[in-house]
């Protein structure tokens, strides 16, 4: 703690002299990697960009929720993908505790929603409408859910309130939580073999887009107050009677000591900005083309110099 405050005051002094002449520390920065491809590739892309301006970078794999605690402690310097719906809670909590800063929102918008693979449409032609889905509920029944359809949600700690929504919309579905993203993918892959109808939690951008075409369920559109004002929406007695916001943020986060220790790198990170198409492209190189994340990052940088060069200036 003492160490950090010393560092900060030293940095403030430096800042007083002149921010423009501030030099980045020669210590390596640490970038957190998680277990999905777009994040790994864009972290490598950011790392390579930072190295191109003369910084040193190291990578560390961490849990995608626990990383915010590590950033607060300064063990991880930056994080390139903070998804609103899945990590928003952990990120906001860490912001409140201090030690972490919000380095801005990217152009990419994230969508997280109930999703079905295209083969569902053959047996339930009314999709993607949620009422049509509800009418087909029986098609999605499994031994553990009995008569009701099964909706396979994401891990509980992503706090999606799917159970509340099922109740609020009076749906004939039972929520089953998968334990990890990999479990969701395995279900989709298994269902694809005999075109079994399923409806699962999914998000975009990710590699499933490229491998298993499908669509999101259209729920009543999200509106302000859907989560906390029961009187609004299609069910006047319950909250959560709407879909997820279609445009969740995708943010960058950093340790609050980063700006002082690596001012140049921090300035670059502030400008880093990916779009949905770019992220999907990075994920595809790894998940579909079978490239290594490091190589995919190099290829992306080579192909998109016009995009990232300006960030370094």
């Amino acid at each position, binding site marked *: 703690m003492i160490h950090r405050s010393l560092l900060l005051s030293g940095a403030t002094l430096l800042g007083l002299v002149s921010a423009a002449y501030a030099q980045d520390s020669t210590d*390596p920065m*640490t970038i*957190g*990697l998680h*277990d*999905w*491809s777009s994040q*790994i590739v864009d972290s490598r892309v950011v790392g390579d960009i930072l190295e191109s301006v003369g910084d*040193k970078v*190291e*990578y*560390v*794999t*961490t*849990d*995608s*929720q*626990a990383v915010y*605690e*590590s950033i607060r*402690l300064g*063990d*991880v310097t930056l994080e390139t993908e903070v998804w609103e719906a899945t990590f928003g809670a*952990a990120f906001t909590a860490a912001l409140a505790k201090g030690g972490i800063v919000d380095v801005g929102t990217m152009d990419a918008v994230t969508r997280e929603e109930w999703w079905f693979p295209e083969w569902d449409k053959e047996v339930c032609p009314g999709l993607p409408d949620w009422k049509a889905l509800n009418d087909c509920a029986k098609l999605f029944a*499994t*031994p*553990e859910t009995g008569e009701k359809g099964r909706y*396979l949600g994401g*891990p*509980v*700690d992503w706090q999606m309130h799917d159970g509340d929504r099922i109740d609020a919309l009076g749906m004939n579905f039972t929520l*089953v*939580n*998968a*334990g*990890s*993203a*990999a*479990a*969701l*993918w*395995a*279900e989709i*892959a*298994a269902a694809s*073999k*005999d075109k079994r109808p399923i409806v699962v939690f999914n998000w975009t951008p990710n*590699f499933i887009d490229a491998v298993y075409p499908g669509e999101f369920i259209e729920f009543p559109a999200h509106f302000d107050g859907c989560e906390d004002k029961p009187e609004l929406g299609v069910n006047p007695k319950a909250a959560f009677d709407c879909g997820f916001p279609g445009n969740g943020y995708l943010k960058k986060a950093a340790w609050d000591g980063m700006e002082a220790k690596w001012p140049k790198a921090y300035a670059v990170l502030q400008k880093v900005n990916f779009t949905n198409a770019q992220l999907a492209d990075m994920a595809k190189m*790894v*998940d579909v083309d079978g490239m*290594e994340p490091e*190589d995919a990052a190099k290829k992306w940088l080579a192909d998109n110099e016009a995009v990232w060069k300006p960030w370094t200036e």
Partner: protein
Amino acid sequence: MTSHRTGALALLALALILALTRNALPAGLMRPPEWLVWPFADWLNAAFAFCQNDLGLMAVTRFAAAGIAALLDVTGNLFYGKARWPNLGPLPWTTFAITAGALAYRVAGWRLALFAAGTFVWIALMGQWEWAMQTLSVILIAAPVTFVTGLGLGIVAWRFALFERVLNPFLNIAQSLPQFAYMIPVVVFVGVGPKAGAITTIVFALPPMIRMTVLGLKKVPENVVESGLMSGANRWQMLTRVRLPTARNDVLVGVNQVIMQCLAMVVLTSFIGMPGLGQKLLQLMQSLKIGLSFEIGVTIVLIAVTLDRISRAWAEMAPKHFAKGTPWHQRHRVLVIWAILMGVAFALAHLSPWFSQIERSDAFSVAKPIDAAVDILIRLIDPVSQALRWFLITWVLIPFRDGLLWLPFTTVLALVMALGYAAGGARSALVCLGFFGMIAMTGWWDRAMITVYTVIVSVVLAALMGFPLGIWGARAQGRAARVLLVCDTLQTFPSFIYLIPVIMLFGVNDVAVVGAVILFAAVPLVRYTIEGLRGVAPELIEAASMSGADRSQLLWKVQLPMALPTILVGVNQSVMFSLFMVIIAAFIGTQDLGQEMQRALSTTDVGKGLVLGLAVAFMGLMVDHLVTTWSAARTQALGLEPPKRAA
């Protein structure tokens, strides 16, 4: 035994009455009432916050971790070229293959040398070099540190009985605590990255090393000690020249356990930033690349076998004696050859990058055929697996789970007390009550019952498969060796790999969870059944055959009863493995303690994680107590030597 029967039956009757009068019971007897549930997690968190902020313990732990990190930086640089002192690396892959081969040749001979060198050639050809080196750079630090620390603590514990008594409960808990539970404090007190991985690994691998050291030193026969004393050895000489060499075999089992534990942690520690094979495996699984993750699993097994065999052979190696006047190069023939080959390797690495590191894009892969095979397998057994899933869920799993949750918690407590009473009288009944009572007091009763249900179903199903397999395997010597080899491989193979195929077969539900757990639960059952049956004295079998016992009589009346104490050790381990695997199966999707543990890990909630971990540990410890007590009674009744227990 009979004296215990009345007490056990009385407790059983109490349990029955409580269950039958369930609807009339006050709420306080149904589920732990509020006054019984203590906020352990909050207390632990407060204690941790105090240590972290007020005592400045974090500065201490981080300072200690910096020591480990410095060591890791050196191996990191040499092995995979991390930009740290001494800035020499990365060494070419050929040098590792040569060194491993030379080392194996020196300690064991040609066969092991080929295997050890072959392992590194496989890693290089599969394009896994950098990942494997990241993993090895941590293991080759963690394992020796564990060995030295464990040996030291073991000697202290052997020397001072009081220290051993204090240490013992900690070791018991540490060995039954799911790994995730202590990974959470490590994130806070040490940070993330290779050093966190190394420290978690050390903590996990330490208990068996301490245990085996104490055990070995205690077993040193009196006459050996006496002859040492008579030769005028002082205390230090007694320890280093007499006692430790005599205890070598047990210390060796400890070393072997350390290596196995280190490799078992490869995948799990990647959750807290350990790079290498484990991290890659998780990432590949995340994008459903089963074949590629399988290749990594094979690498981990190969590394485990290589390290295990070399360390074993090294410890068993007899010192070589040379005639006086033998020239240096003859006495150190292997060293000379090694040095020459190393020179060649470096030269080759300069000539072609192929001899330095094989790029991933040039590497071989057997992933495609594996993926195809898995795909065909899943399609083939899909109709069966769907029917099996339906049957198990509707007729076995859901009724059993609901039944267990339906029971008042007091019934369950009375039941475990009855079990305890039957095994070891009033004292055991109280021990069992203590363990399960603590679980009730954590406030996670329902989730704990779901864990209990998963473990019971898995162990029972595993027993249905494991016992017959073990009996079949024990029939012939060669067959036994082959089955045991399969057991070893299954045990070292990273558990995470099983998760995806079971989901593909059964979907996200309890059948998949049980399916993944069974694989692990069955291994110790098969192993100890074989070892128990093959350990039955041949004279006994001969005597029984002479008295005209046929094959089934021989099995049921002689072999199985005599092997029972050893088989029980297997049951005990099976429960332990299941408990660990159930926690990992949270990645499939469960509603038990494991799911909460996963949540605690992602919110770095130290207190909650430890409380959940302790609840799991108490289940394991209770079963351990029951089995050990009962097994001891059986052993005594049979007049056998107590079975060897793995640490």
